[in-house]
């Protein structure tokens, strides 16, 4: 039994092994991009909105509102990154109910890749907003002795992000597989329904944590800047 779609190799090109994770990721990307393209091709700017446009606007507005509430900052710069994380994870988890579909988020490689994206996004937004020097100075706060602990904290945070999402999705799939062996009639369907809820919650948690990390970095930079300005 494969506990990760990484183990399902569909095409072996030596170093590059095209596994089920990549294929289902591409399918998900194509589905999301195609859906977005088809909906946004005919957008209405008047009062009459199509249901799909209304759904997307509610989605974007909701993400903006969440970022604004959590980060207390303008959601504009973070919106594409956070919303894409949420949509991708949610789409992968929701499509898990489709027979034959193996969610890419059940692969530790995928969750690690997403956690690495968050890991790099934090300094990216921090440096873009406040500059490299001030961002690096954050790791020396409150004292240079905390530099090793700050670095370990960054790595642990990334690891926790990756393992949390992977463990939840993978465990959900395993529980359904095990229940199929024990009680194949009713319980797998109930667990699948529960998986839909769990998947959405995991997507929300992953996006919120990414927002918190990025906002913490930018907020810390702002606080450092606020503290350092009177010294000038």
């Amino acid at each position, binding site marked *: 039994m494969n506990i990760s779609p990484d183990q399902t190799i569909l095409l072996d090109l030596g170093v590059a092994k095209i596994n089920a994770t990549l294929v289902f990721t591409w399918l998900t*990307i194509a589905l999301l991009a195609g859906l977005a*393209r088809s909906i946004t091709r005919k957008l209405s700017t008047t009062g009459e909105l199509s249901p799909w446009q209304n759904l997307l606007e509610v989605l974007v507005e909701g993400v903006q509102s969440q970022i604004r509430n959590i980060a207390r900052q303008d959601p504009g710069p973070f919106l594409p990154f956070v919303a894409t994380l949420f949509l991708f994870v949610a789409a992968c988890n929701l499509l898990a109910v489709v027979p034959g579909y193996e969610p890419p988020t059940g692969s530790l490689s995928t969750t690690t890749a*997403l956690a*690495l994206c968050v890991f790099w996004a934090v300094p990216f937004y921090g440096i873009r907003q406040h500059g490299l020097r001030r961002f690096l100075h954050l790791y020396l706060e409150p004292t240079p002795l905390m530099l090793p602990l700050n670095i370990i904290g960054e790595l642990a945070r990334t690891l926790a992000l990756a393992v949390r999402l992977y463990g939840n999705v993978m465990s959900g799939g395993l529980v359904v597989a095990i229940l199929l062996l024990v009680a194949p009639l009713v319980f797998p369907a109930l667990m699948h329904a529960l998986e839909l809820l769990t998947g959405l919650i995991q997507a929300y948690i992953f996006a919120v944590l990414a927002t918190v990390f990025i906002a913490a970095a930018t907020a810390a930079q702002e606080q450092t800047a606020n503290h350092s300005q009177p010294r000038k």
Partner: protein
Amino acid sequence: MKLDWFTIAAQIGNFLLLLWLLKRFLYRPILAAMSVRQQRIATALTEAQAKAAAAEALQQDYLARQRELAAHRETELAQAQEETAVQRQIWLTQARAEVDEARKRWRAELEREQRNNRQTLQREAGQRLLALARRALRDLGNAELEAQMVPVLLARLQALDGETRRTLAEAARDGCAILTAFPLAASQQQTLIAGLRQALATDMIPDFRTDPTAPLGITLETPSQRLAWTLDSYLDGFAAELQTLTRPAGSSDPSDHE
């Protein structure tokens, strides 16, 4: 379980690709559409606020004009009332003045009429009294009364100044007459002749004549002079004084100054 670094790298690339695709096909158009609609709503709100402000301003202007009109009306009303009161006071004053003037005129007219009536009455009473006195004296007059007048005439003659007596004496040389209403007794004639000769220093012999229509008294007549003492001369003097006292208004009557 081991990490497949190729898959990790590929998934990072896939995620970045999805990020780019969604940014191009989802976030940017949706945000643009939302922005346009928001702008339109903001514009509509601004227009609505502008219209509301204009309506508010119009309402305020209307209310201000209404207040101004009310104040103007109050002012006009107060001014009209004041003018009416002033005009009423003027007319009342004029009416009082006219009434006072008319009353004065009426009173003056009444007083003048009363005065005229009183003067007319006085004059009439005087004339009647005079006529009554004349008639009474005429009725009471007789020879004895005339005889008592002889000494009076002689006394008056003595009271004349020398020039007058000389003039009278020269006139008497051409002849003189004594005129009475009743015949004088001889003694009285002698007394009278003696008195005349003494007073005028001439030997005159007067001619005694009697005229019943003559006034009561004695009259000495010469061709050019006349000396008389009669009751009529008293009555004439009384009539003259009565005429003076009952002179009509407008003259220097002392009653005008009451």
